[in-house]
């Protein structure tokens, strides 16, 4: 009896220890990556990094301004396009989609698109857009990213709208409001914090996406505002520069990685904190 008791106790301690080790591995991974970015990336972020364009092969110095502006344009446009689409689709699923077959299928497909391989979305936009217009462009990069961002917005909007109490909806109906105004002015307004969280998470998700841009926006060595041409952007530039043999290119890539990581983590944390406060009040 005593030996058995000891063995059970030992197994238990061992399992607790191992689960602690597992958490340690996860935390170690996060801290290790962030520390690497901090040590290698922050020194690279000097004045030239934010003012000069990417250097030609073999030349010294240079910066990332063309890629930073390109990323801002592509991500900005994507956010403008995917926010209304995502919110309206989310409203359909939450407000009209109770017993509809289309809604059930859409919900299922949206969940799958959330995890679908982003490189295949790049292929799709290439076939649809780049192959027909015969050139790579910032526009097509934005389209590819929108296809990734929309499902994120749809799902958070729907989940948030589901939290609106039925009594609030009924009260609005009792005042004689039409359904569309109840959806937009009552329900959506009641959960706007949560919906904004969804948009922030979508932006965080697409800011670092590289694969769908590889054969849509491509890259551009020069500064450009023209969305109809190949456009420099941070992720693809990091990819090209990290794989290059030039040391100053690699340094720039570390700087750009640190910049993206800071932005993405900041967005994630802001989204979480903002939503937590909302749900407590």
């Amino acid at each position, binding site marked *: 009896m005593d030996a058995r008791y000891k063995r059970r106790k030992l197994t238990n301690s061992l399992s607790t220890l191992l689960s602690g080790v597992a958490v340690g591995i996860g935390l170690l991974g996060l801290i290790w990556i962030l520390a690497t970015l901090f040590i290698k990336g922050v020194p690279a972020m000097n004045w030239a990094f934010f003012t000069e364009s990417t250097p030609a092969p073999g030349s010294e110095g240079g910066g990332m301004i063309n890629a930073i502006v390109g990323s801002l344009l592509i991500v900005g446009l994507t956010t403008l396009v995917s926010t209304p689409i995502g919110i309206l689709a989310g409203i359909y699923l939450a407000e009209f989609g109770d017993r509809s077959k289309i809604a059930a299928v859409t919900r299922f497909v949206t969940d799958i698109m959330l995890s679908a391989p982003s490189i295949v979305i790049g292929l799709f936009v*290439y076939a649809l857009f780049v192959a027909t217009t015969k050139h790579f462009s910032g526009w097509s990069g934005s389209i590819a990213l929108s296809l990734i961002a929309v499902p994120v917005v749809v799902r958070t909007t729907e989940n948030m709208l589901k939290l609106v109490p039925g009594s609030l909806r009924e009260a609005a109906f009792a005042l004689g409001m039409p359904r569309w105004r109840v959806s937009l002015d009552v329900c959506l307004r009641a959960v706007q914090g949560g919906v904004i969280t969804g948009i922030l998470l979508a932006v965080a998700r697409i800011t670092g996406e590289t694969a769908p841009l590889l054969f849509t926006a491509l890259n551009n060595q020069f500064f450009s505002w023209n969305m109809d041409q190949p456009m420099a952007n941070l992720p693809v530039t990091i990819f090209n520069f990290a794989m290059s043999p030039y040391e100053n290119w690699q340094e720039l890539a570390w700087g750009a990685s640190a910049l993206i990581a800071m932005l993405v983590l900041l967005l994630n944390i802001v989204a979480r904190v903002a939503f937590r406060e909302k749900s407590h009040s």
Partner: protein
Amino acid sequence: MIDTNETVAQAMERQAAKSAKFLRQDRLFAGVTLSFASLVLLTLFGILVSLVVQAWPAFQEFGFGFFYSTTWSPTDGNFGAGIGIWGTLVTSLIALLVGVPISFGIAMFLTESCPVWLRRPLGTAIELLAGVPSIIYGFWGLFIFAPLVQDYIQPWMIRWIGEPFFGGPPLGLGIFTAGLVLALMVIPFIASVMRDVFETVPAVLKESAYGIGCTRWEVVKNIVLPYTRVGVIGGIMLGLGRALGETMAVTFVIGNANRFSLDLFDPGNSIASTLANEFAEADPTMHIPALFGLGLILFIITFVVLSISEWLIKQGEKKAGVK
């Protein structure tokens, strides 16, 4: 505002007109939102159709052999998906073998042993790991992690395990390292699903088990795991779906060699890494269709895996609703 001289009939008519107007607006609104929701569906069909259309020349040229041939040679225009499929499946399998036990440990720690005040910050930290863009995993994997694997892990494994899977030479880059980086990437996804389903176990069940003297491990093994089995498998499938389609992290560290080898330390290629490396400079006659063929295979595999995962996680949630 209200006309006091209005008759009852007039008022009713006015109301009816207003109701009709509201009804029209509502129908329009429902239609507009429906059309946006359908966009998501259309995208899915669009992806499938465009991939099939673009890949068709490759299927015609190589026939069924395209799916298993291990020749991938852009120079003489001979293509088969075997290397890519092998690389994709094996790296994902390594990721699961390494990642699932760790994710389970994390979920168990967060739901059972962790002090309450620490749960939130720890959970958030693990979720942040999911937020790190994949290109950063790749970059870190290439410059920091792969050299360590090459210097410490691989020589040790070659010495103690060796042929046929760990024969060497220790290059650092290759299928094995890609699997390890993928493992780190899928941990947060699997762990957060597991944590969520573990939390659905009714407290009464667990308390009864503790009440008859079970240890924490026995509660997890005999109560929590059987109760949440379906959801746990769903979470693992979600991780698998993520690992299969991951592009950038794999592209950096897999070594990018179009050569088939059983040895996991050899460089290889996954479907996604082949696409990322070759597509922009591919020749449109047969190379591009072959790459689209790879994309189609990848999309179908991940679609099936993710569908199963969705379905299982839903089943798990339903159970939580019944309690």
